[in-house]
């Protein structure tokens, strides 16, 4: 199949285009670094199929972080049939910097000027014909979000496949000094076995690309560093700046020549609405309080909008449950089946599903935040504070993403250039409370803390973040010392969130929540239900069943922290498989008493032990998928380390809260 790669700067809209072309629902957002992996999808056009590859954004072909290596290696090594270079038309000059380098590789390139509608609205006019002439490749104006002009883009790309050229490196005019340096280096490395074109490697050496330098060293040219330095010094003597600066400068000169007379801007000087908004949102005094208020509003809204919906959903599921068991009894199904459907399916899985609307509301609100352009501002506002703790501003972004789910939160640590920052960001992410833990808090808050629901929920998230930050500080002082990090990040333009985008994101999350309930939680409920009814003849859901005995065995571990019941112990254990199952397990085990889950919890917990339990849920061992992600991104050892240290931290925090609470006379 024909491969078409989407390449461009971070936040230029590659994933939005990918979604539009392949009818997928990849995560998109208005900040640099949403996509950190290579994703593939199929475009169907006139009975033909094409393989579309979405790549992480890069500013140039010199990679420095994990996600950038993925994109660069794809372009240079995999040699796709066509590259669509996605360009943010509102920021054309800097976006073309990458284009100049892609054009040097002489691959089949089609430039997609994305967000052309936005650029036009801001007064930018682009003469596409002239730009095409100068770049020497086809240019198509599109709006990926509004799906405008995509047919023309597809047709152009297909034509490009038919007239395929052989790739062959053709450098820009960098001036005699640089070009003779390139020739000299090229002849030195001509016998090396490299995965990259030689001329390109020679240029990269003059740009001091340490990765390429290492590749050349490994294939036998040990003194390449000295050779490059000598050439570079010669260039610096002649031109005042070193080769790296000269090369970048010449590229920007080329861009100025490309855009001269064909890109014009009208209202360049006027302070835009976004600038004014930034003056307030990133303000010296108000920046951090505004951040806190935005998060508080997020949780309050989740409750006020979501709670009503949840009640309705709960009632709906219950009524179906009653009908289902009546129907089963009617057709004479065996008692065991009826009991399983009542206890395992409806009381268990149903308890989880009733939270679906609430979780959807939260994802919708987070989606709005992501699409507006605020995320990058949050990293900017928090960076200094984070640095006191030995952390990086972007770590904070990975934590906010973790609020949705820890898996993408951990993945997003790929955008951190520095290994130390990246490891710490991954290890502390599980303390950020994810969407799957939300139902558990809601059940407990509903049972004990009805007066200040939003506030309690908000403080749980804050506690999670504080613990994450403290552990981050500990790690940066102990495990990963000394590495220097830096913070250079683009601030995207504010944008009115696209309801379509946000809704798609929400539906995608809702879909996977639903799927998880069916694929993971339902089978697990089947196993648990069996274990809690076996050996047959024991009272169902009693401590004499196998499940009960296992629970009784673990329970003493939690006596000191306030919830030493076997049901709690079993629920926590199932929570490691998927956090939602804590609610499902409790729903099933307590349903035996014939009262509502909320009432059963009021009966089995005190406000203090409920608080301690919520803290434990917040902090203890993350779910198995999160651990698997840590294994994938780091290694097995770190995954095991995370599983254990989070459990210990959770136990200590809950023990402190419970016992201090007892001393203070709470119960």
């Amino acid at each position, binding site marked *: 199949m024909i491969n078409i790669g989407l390449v461009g700067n971070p936040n230029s809209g590659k994933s939005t285009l990918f979604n539009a072309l392949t009818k997928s629902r990849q995560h998109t957002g208005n900040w640099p670094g949403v996509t950190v992996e290579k994703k593939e999808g199929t475009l169907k056009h006139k009975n033909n199929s094409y393989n579309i590859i979405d790549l992480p954004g890069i500013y140039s072909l010199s990679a420095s972080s994990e996600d950038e290596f993925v994109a660069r290696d794809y372009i240079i090594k995999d040699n796709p049939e066509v590259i669509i270079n996605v360009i943010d038309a509102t920021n054309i*000059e*800097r976006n073309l910097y990458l284009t100049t380098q892609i054009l040097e590789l002489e691959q089949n390139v089609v430039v997609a000027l994305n967000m052309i509608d936005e650029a036009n609205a801001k007064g930018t006019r682009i003469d596409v014909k002239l730009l095409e002439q100068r770049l020497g490749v086809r240019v198509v104006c599109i709006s990926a979000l509004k799906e405008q002009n995509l047919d023309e883009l597809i047709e152009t790309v297909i034509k490009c496949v038919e007239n395929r050229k052989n790739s062959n490196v053709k450098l820009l005019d960098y001036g005699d000094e640089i070009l003779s340096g390139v020739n000299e280096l090229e002849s030195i490395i001509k016998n090396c076995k490299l995965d990259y074109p030689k001329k390109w490697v020679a240029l990269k050496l003059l740009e001091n690309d340490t990765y390429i330098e290492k590749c050349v060293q490994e294939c036998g040219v040990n003194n390449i560093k000295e050779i490059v330095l000598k050439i570079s010094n010669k260039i610096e003597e002649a031109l005042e700046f070193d080769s*790296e*600066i000269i090369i970048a400068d010449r590229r920007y000169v080329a861009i100025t020549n490309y855009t001269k007379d064909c890109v014009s801007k009208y209202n360049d000087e006027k302070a835009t609405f976004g*600038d004014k908004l*930034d003056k307030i949102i*990133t303000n010296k005094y108000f920046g951090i309080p505004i951040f806190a208020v935005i998060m508080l509003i997020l949780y309050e809204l989740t409750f006020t909008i979501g709670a009503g919906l949840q009640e309705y959903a709960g009632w709906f599921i219950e009524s179906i449950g009653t009908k289902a068991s009546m129907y089963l009894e009617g057709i004479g199904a065996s008692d065991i089946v009826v009991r399983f459907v009542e206890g395992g399916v409806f009381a268990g899985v149903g308890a989880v599903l009733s939270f679906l609307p609430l979780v959807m509301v939260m994802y919708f609100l987070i989606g709005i935040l992501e699409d507006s352009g605020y995320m990058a501002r949050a990293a900017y506002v928090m960076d*200094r504070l984070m640095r006191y703790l030995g952390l990086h501003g972007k770590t904070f972004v990975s934590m906010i993403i973790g609020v949705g789910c820890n898996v993408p939160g951990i993945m997003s640590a790929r955008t951190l250039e520095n290994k130390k920052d990246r490891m710490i960001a991954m290890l502390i992410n599980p303390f950020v409370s994810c969407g799957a833990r939300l139902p558990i808090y809601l059940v407990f808050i509903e049972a004990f803390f009805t007066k200040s629901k939003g506030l309690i929920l908000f403080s749980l998230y804050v506690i999670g973040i504080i613990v994450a930050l403290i552990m981050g500080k500990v790690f940066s002082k102990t495990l990963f010392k000394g590495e220097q990090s*830096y913070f*250079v990040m683009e601030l995207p333009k504010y944008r009115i969130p696209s309801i379509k985008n946000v809704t798609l994101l929400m539906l995608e999350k809702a879909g996977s929540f639903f799927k998880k309930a069916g694929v993971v939680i339902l089978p697990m409920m089947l196993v648990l239900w069996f274990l809690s009814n076996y050996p047959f003849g024991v009272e169902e859901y009693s401590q004499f069943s196998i499940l009960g005995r296992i629970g009784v065995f673990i329970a003493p571990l939690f006596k000191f922290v306030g919830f030493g019941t076997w049901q709690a112990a079993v629920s926590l254990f199932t929570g490691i498989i998927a956090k939602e199952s804590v609610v499902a397990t409790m729903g099933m085990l307590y349903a035996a008493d014939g009262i509502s889950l909320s009432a059963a919890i009021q009966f089995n917990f005190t406000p203090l032990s409920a608080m301690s339990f919520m803290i434990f849920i917040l902090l203890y061992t993350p779910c198995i998928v999160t651990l698997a992600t840590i294994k994938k991104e780091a290694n097995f050892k770190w995954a095991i380390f995370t599983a254990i240290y989070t459990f210990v931290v959770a136990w200590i925090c809950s023990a402190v809260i419970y016992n201090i609470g007892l001393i203070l006379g709470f119960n």
Partner: protein
Amino acid sequence: MRTLDLIQIGESVSVKGIDKNSNIKRKLLEMGVTPGIEITVEGCAPLGDPINISLRGYRLTLRKQEAHAILV
């Protein structure tokens, strides 16, 4: 020669060069910080750091420590 971290908010300056030994030289170059380009310091985050600047029609943020590598 001054460095960018010392520039007042609201002031515009022209880039003269980048500190030769800076480990983020390439990052700055690919973001468009090249000799001769004009940079305006637009503001700073709470606690005075990082700063945000505008150049080539877009906004960039960087810490003072990184701004120190930009000669203006």
